[in-house]
């Protein structure tokens, strides 16, 4: 009755600040807030870089909508990623910022604006040798 390598493949978040729901439309970004100084972080934290305390930290659910703070267009990418693509920092209403890709637009400077309103979604981006799937979040412009 030896256990073998045919364990059921899992669906996993690519980053710890992505919480997966039953279905992809239930996925959300998580953060944490230091109850001592109110500093807000993306993802879980044990200690606070701002007030040097151990919190405690309150887990918070981050909004799925935000604004582009700054962006760049990466033309020379790591080998397994298709380029060019838009990499950006998106500010969320909770006072935190996330790294992300902006998709749904042609990656040209004239298509990306500072302060552009964007909305989060998730999708599978990779699979490892054991067949586990990895889900990442991305942002796309909110149609005006």
């Amino acid at each position, binding site marked *: 009755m030896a256990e073998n390598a045919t364990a059921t493949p899992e669906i996993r978040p*690519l*980053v710890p600040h992505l919480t997966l729901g039953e279905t992809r439309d239930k996925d959300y970004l998580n953060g944490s807030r230091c109850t001592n100084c109110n*500093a807000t*972080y*993306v993802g879980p934290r044990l200690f606070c*870089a*701002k007030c040097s305390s151990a919190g405690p930290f309150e887990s918070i659910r981050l909004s799925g909508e935000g604004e582009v*703070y*700054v*962006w*760049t*267009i*990466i*033309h*020379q*990418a*790591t*080998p*397994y*990623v298709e*380029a*060019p*693509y838009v*990499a*950006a*920092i998106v*500010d969320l209403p909770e*006072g*935190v*910022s*996330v*790294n*992300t*890709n902006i998709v749904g637009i042609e990656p040209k*400077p004239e298509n990306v604006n*500072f302060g552009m309103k964007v909305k989060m979604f998730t999708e599978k*981006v*990779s*699979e*490892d*040798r054991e067949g*586990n799937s*990895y889900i*990442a*979040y*991305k942002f796309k412009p909110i149609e005006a």
Partner: protein
Amino acid sequence: MREVAIVGVSMIKFGRYPDRDVAQLAAQSGLEALKDGGVQMKDIQALYSGNLYQTSGSGQRILQQMGQTGIPVVNVANACATGSTAFREAYFAIASGAYDIVMAVGSEQMGKQGLLGSRGDPATSLEGRVGSYMMPAVFGMAGMEHMRSYGTQQEHFALASVKNHMHSTQNPLAQYQKESPLDEVLNGRMIAYPNTLLMCCPTGDGAAAAVLCSMDKARQYTTQPIKVAASVLTSDPYTDRGLTLPDINTLTRNAAKIAYEQAGIGPEDLSQVELHDCFATAELLHYENLGLCGDGEAGKHIASGAPWIGNKIPTKYEEDVAPFQDKTYQPKTTAVVNASGGLLSKGHPLGATGVANIAEIVFHLRGQAGGRQVEGSKIGLAHVIGLCSACTINIVQK
């Protein structure tokens, strides 16, 4: 604290040395620095070795090449500020009175790996899937932040590449010594907007060394001791977006403030600056961070001609630069920036860079910088920043 002097420096030509190992490159610069200072290896009381890729034992391997005298060796790694952190440790060794004469060496052998090397397991890597964490992205976005705040144009950043590549033509130690007019920079292959290929520093192999000595003993070795007027290291303080978008500005500003206080000078007193232009965008941000111009004025500052050798735009580039000039702008400082050609031309073998920047300024203070000599240079500032994050500023003067 005692006054500290630099009595010997060396920088080997940066480039690619596939037939040499990194300890040999470092030993070459070490031996040249000894010769430059008229110092014997047996006089050196401690070695501070900056090397990022081969940290453990890097200094001992250098001594296996240049002399196993049994002295204490401290191996230093601190991102791109590795070499300059080793220099600062050497500075403290003298300033504290622990030793009278020591050496700092910075070295690196990067081959062709560059800054786009492997990022781990492709199945679980974030790179390119949840934004980009590579240096081109970080410094592209740092430039975009300046564009957002001040309306700076891509062309303003590109002028840093034009300037530094022009300066490099007079630096035989630079990896590349080729001019690049504005249209060539702008029309080059895009790496990460707004930085094109010629707005990114090359990687390579290199080494640089400095011999430091207490000022009271320096005259035994040289008639031109160079005083270390300030040696400062900072890390990145907590800022709101700093854990998502590395903040290269605040720690540089903090370091500059401390360094100017230590040296008892202001940015207007500087003859020249060697600053960390790993990307053209970074150069302009650091004009403001180092106080060479006011906030938001970096684009005007470079277009004014002030940071160019001779403090003016070369005649052949006047037409190219004119559309980006503000005729009402009056530069408040005249420090020439990156007379060496900067990292953009000189190359950036990580551990070597911080010592090489200091060596470059020493060449100028002694009047040994040949065709790129900053006339009458009396005091210079060497700045380095490495991400995650370390900033060093060393001010040296005649």
